[in-house]
């Protein structure tokens, strides 16, 4: 009996030893750090799924420089200090080559010092307010000049001269609107009002009455989450519709549109770098692969497309650098260009993307039809020249 046990133990330890040698030679670890629980889970789980899909595809095609990618998945739990703790764990204990993650600006700002201290590299997939530029973060979502400002340009081009700014009361809407106000003034358009409602707020009676008194031509909406449901219900009840007073939103993508209900959102606009309906071949392939794995009705959004592409960008940079070292990858990634689901993108020296901007109109099933797009691609500007003069990336 004891002999049998010792044989088993020996065999087991041999197998384990073989397995661990294999993993040291044939794999590379990366971290995926998103909120899988809590209030942000609804948005972030699908972004983590998109990153996972790209990793699975790369592994199936032979990995990165001959090594299979092993994912260490961590839950930021919609809690900003937890993002910092988990990032620290990924970098120091798991020694991952890079991390894909984050959604809210608060989570990013809490992770930033961890990545700078440990010399790590973070791919951040969501549009944000700019005014930040760390050498340890690849900001692939839209900078303000790749979403907010093109939307303003488009509105002015349509002849909408009186603009009402409505947002949730936190850092992104306040900063985005600070930039927009400078540009509204510079373009000699009129700011007809500006209001902020607490995150999760449900009462828009006063806001709508102020809109009625201000008689704007268009509303630029940076409300986040469920407040959009309340706003559009009450906006419609007050007799407004897209044809009489259009709303351009920066936080409503296909998934949010499905949740709000297309009846409420029909004909309203959103501006992003990506829509599920984009007809390019890379996107068709991405949409088909995602829906095959996560359900045929799964909605696909701009941050998901960015997260999916981020993994391919990292792979390309690793292969160009011939190294998994984060700082070598950061150096090599500049100038890399690819045909992604978003169309043609290139990484600029400041670590953000040169990418196209689309304005879409909401229709059936939460899908958007592109009605306008930027002339070619737009270079990323983390620091708006009017709002933050003199500030540049290090």
């Amino acid at each position: 009996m004891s002999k049998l046990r010792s044989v088993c133990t020996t065999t087991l330890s041999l197998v384990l030893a073989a397995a661990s040698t294999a993993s040291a030679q044939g794999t590379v670890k990366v971290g995926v750090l998103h909120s899988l629980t809590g209030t942000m889970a609804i948005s972030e789980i699908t972004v983590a799924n998109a990153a996972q899909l790209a990793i699975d595809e790369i592994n199936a095609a032979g990995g990165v420089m001959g090594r299979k990618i092993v994912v260490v998945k961590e839950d930021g739990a919609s809690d900003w200090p937890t993002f910092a703790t988990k990032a620290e764990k990924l970098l120091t204990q798991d020694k991952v080559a890079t991390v894909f993650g984050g959604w809210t600006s608060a989570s990013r700002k809490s992770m930033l010092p961890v990545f700078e201290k440990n010399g790590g590299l973070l791919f951040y997939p969501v549009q944000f307010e700019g005014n930040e530029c760390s050498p340890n973060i690849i900001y692939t979502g839209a900078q303000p000049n790749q979403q907010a400002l093109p939307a303003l340009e488009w509105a002015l081009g349509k002849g909408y001269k009186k603009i009402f700014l409505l947002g949730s009361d936190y850092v992104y809407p306040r900063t985005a609107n600070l930039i927009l106000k400078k540009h509204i003034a510079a373009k000699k358009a009129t700011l007809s009002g500006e209001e902020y409602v607490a995150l999760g707020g449900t009462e828009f009676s006063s806001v709508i009455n102020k809109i009625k008194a201000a008689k704007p031509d268009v509303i630029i909406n940076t409300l986040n989450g469920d407040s959009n449901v309340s706003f559009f219900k009450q906006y419609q009840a007050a007799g407004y519709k897209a044809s009489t007073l259009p709303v351009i939103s920066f936080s409503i993508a296909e998934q949010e549109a499905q949740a709000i209900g297309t009846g409420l959102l029909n004909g309203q606009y959103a501006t992003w770098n990506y829509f599920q309906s984009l007809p390019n071949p890379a996107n068709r392939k991405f949409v088909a692969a995602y829906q095959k794995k996560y359900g045929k009705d799964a909605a696909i959004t701009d941050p998901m497309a960015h997260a999916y592409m981020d993994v391919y960008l990292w792979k390309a940079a690793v292969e160009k650098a011939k190294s998994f070292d984060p700082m070598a990858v950061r150096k090599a990634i500049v100038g890399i260009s690819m045909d992604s689901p978003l169309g043609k993108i290139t990484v600029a020296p400041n670590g953000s993307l040169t990418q196209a901007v689309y304005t879409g109109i909401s229709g059936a099933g939460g899908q958007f039809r592109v009605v306008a797009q930027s002339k070619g691609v737009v270079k990323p500007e983390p620091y708006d020249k009017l709002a933050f003069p003199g500030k540049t990336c290090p």
Partner: protein
Amino acid sequence: MDFTFISGQLFTGLSVASILLLAALGLALSFGLMRVINMAHGEFLMVGGYLTYLAAQWAGPTLGDAWLWAAFPLAFLGAALLGAVMEFTVIRRLYGRPLDTLLATFGISLILQQAARQLFGSTGVPVTAPAWLGGAWQLGDVTLPFVRLFVIVLAAVVLAGMWWLLNRSRFGMHVRAVNQNREMAAALGVNTRSLDMLVFALGAGIAGVAGVGLALIAPVNPTVGAAYIVNAFLVVVVGGVGSVLGGAVAAVLLGFVTALAEGFTSVSLAQAILLVLVVAFLQWKPRGLIPTKSRALEEA
């Protein structure tokens, strides 16, 4: 600041007041009369919202736009049943231990939120008001959406019903008797145990009905209850704990103060102004607008 804007804000005040009142009326029973600090009260509103969604799903195809009338009894009974179960299993074991009740009900609120997430997903469900509530009444330049008017009428009807029940029915007499002197009422033959359960269930049921109204203008999702709970407590405390009439007056007052503060400053500043005014008011009148004299309250 023209006349139209000010009339619009006055209507906003009434509209906000009706929502505050709906959120607070059930709480006026459980917190006001029974002194139970029920942190899960917002979840009864949420349950009412989800039952409204289910009513629209089940009754919509057969009844058409009349599904809304099926939503009221469904939401009332569903929430009341949940309230009765909660009282029987948890609350009744914690009477006279306010801190424990607060923690236990907070735990229940988290459980209910998670349950909603498991059953319906975290995105929330769409509830669209029936078409006959879609229009608006144009009074000069002021637009009065039907759905807002409906919520105002609903709040008034629920208030009147509660007033009648508490002040004109035998049940209400027993409730008031127990509230004034529990031992004496028990000695005179009132079954205080089952009365406690009934009052708590009634408070929950009223919150369920309020949930129907709120679903028409706000989202239905797992965390929506949290958006109302603070304001509901505010109304009950300002009105005077134990007084339904005080709660009604407080809701109207807070509604108008909110609307004027939002109208003349900014929406983000208004909530802060409101809270400062409430704190100042409670310094002046710690027992609220209409204080209730009751032995039960003095002991607490």
